[in-house]
């Protein structure tokens, strides 16, 4: 029982961070039909920028905001220079392009920050006792903050003028253009928002495991799984799927080792692709 409560908490915290990563990925996919394989590397870059800013200023929250803004600007530049010219081409071209960006970002991080693991210290100190375990408050704070950021994103998409532009463009690009919505600009903005979400997740996740230039790939993969499970381009579905998959992994870790528990998410992915290819949390299309 104790184990289950601990693992539930664990799963929820991981799920919230994963949901933040996946939300950017799914938003970009929904509007541009681009699977961004560099998403995890934008997260990694955000974590490094955050660690550097933290090193200079000592202020974690400043580091969080700075990383999000810096990576958002970089994301916008990448979109304009690399992806915008590829719009309307074979999707494979954009996949290759984002894969290329991923490699470039990793090599840049290696060159700029070196191969050693960077630490981001926890901004919220202290631990509380959960049965036999000392559980850091920071993890709880992370989950709450991720929830707040996701809530903010949701409100923006639901009620903001530009949120409506984004949703309209996602549904019908041609009609959105006819209504005067500057679609190329919306694409760039969405890519920037997705990049900022990735960077913020990187800084939030940094204290859990440390920052390395190869940390991105794992996140790309995990985010990709939950985006497929939740339904490509479906924000709410991705968030639910993140929590669902993370909880499953956490419970599986009770029985098998955590490394083996990851297999669970792949099993869920395969089953989803086989039986519900539009996603677990999408009503079956009529």
């Amino acid at each position, binding site marked *: 029982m104790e184990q289950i409560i601990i693992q539930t908490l664990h799963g929820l915290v991981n799920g919230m961070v994963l949901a933040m990563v996946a939300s950017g990925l799914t938003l970009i996919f929904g509007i541009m039909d681009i699977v961004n394989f560099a998403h995890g590397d934008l997260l990694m870059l955000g974590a490094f920028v955050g660690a550097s800013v933290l090193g200079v200023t000592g202020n974690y929250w400043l580091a969080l905001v700075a990383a999000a803004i810096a990576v958002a600007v970089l994301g916008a530049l990448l979109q304009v220079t690399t992806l915008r010219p590829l719009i309307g081409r074979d999707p494979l071209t954009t996949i290759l392009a984002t894969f290329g960006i991923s490699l470039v970002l990793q090599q840049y991080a290696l060159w700029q920050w070196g191969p050693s693991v960077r630490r981001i210290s926890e901004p919220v100190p202290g631990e509380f006792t959960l049965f036999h375990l000392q559980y850091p408050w920071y993890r709880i704070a992370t989950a709450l903050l991720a929830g707040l950021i996701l809530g903010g994103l949701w409100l923006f998409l639901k009620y903001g003028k530009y949120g409506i532009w984004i949703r309209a463009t996602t549904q019908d690009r041609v009609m959105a253009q006819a209504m005067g919505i500057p679609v*190329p600009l919306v694409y760039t903005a969405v890519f920037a928002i997705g990049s900022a979400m990735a960077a913020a997740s990187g800084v939030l996740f940094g204290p859990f495991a440390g920052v390395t230039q190869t940390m991105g790939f794992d996140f790309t993969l995990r985010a990709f799984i939950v985006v497929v499970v939740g339904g490509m381009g479906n924000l709410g579905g991705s968030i639910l799927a993140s929590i669902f998959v993370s909880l499953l992994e956490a419970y599986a870790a009770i029985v098998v080792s955590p490394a083996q528990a990851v297999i669970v998410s792949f099993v869920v992915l395969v089953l989803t692709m086989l039986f519900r290819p539009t996603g677990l949390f999408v009503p079956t299309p009529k």
Partner: protein
Amino acid sequence: MLVLENVDAHYGKSHVLHGVSIEVREGEVVGLLGRNGVGKTTTLKAIMGLVRRTGGRIAFEGRDLGGVAPHGLAGLGIAWVPEERRIFRLLTVLENLRTGLDRPGTTPVRRERLLEKIYRYFPILRERRHQAGGTLSGGEQQMLAIARAMVLEPKIILLDEPTEGLMPRMVAQIQEIVHVLHRDGVAILLVEQNVPLTLDAAGRVYIMEKGAVRHHASAADLRADPRVIHEYLGV
């Protein structure tokens, strides 16, 4: 105001418009008649920059539309009500209208006034304003598509088969709206299969066949002598 000169267009490799020339003057309602698949919709799409134009010229108020980005047309005063309506299905009725209302340069007061005007013409849209566009009936979606074009306060509306598949009561309502728009000085290029409606609403009519304009006359002449209509449309 809107001038098409010898417009040629291609869908992939097939040549779909052959030297189409059409003119719509300020505040004028112009009908575009023809059977299915003769290029009426394609003509509108060519104006919207949605098909590959391979020859000729399209100009609006003297400005060549060739260099205008697709999202720039609304700002020039050109609104499009497509045949398939293309409602943003997951957006509410109000959000559908906001896609055009929230453009730069409109003040909140003006937006409010415009919205009131729309709701006065289409009371059903006020009732359904928080409902997703995809849940509306066909007729309501058509109203919304027209209302969505109207919030752009366009100088011309490209209206593509607005009465297709609608009940007679709805058709009458659409006809009424076309009259109101005309009275307000909005030009309309009306693509229709409904001949009586077109002859009633339009001042001039172009008749298309096989991707080209075959006949051009005033609506009054066509009403007086329906033989041409019979020849090209078989009605």
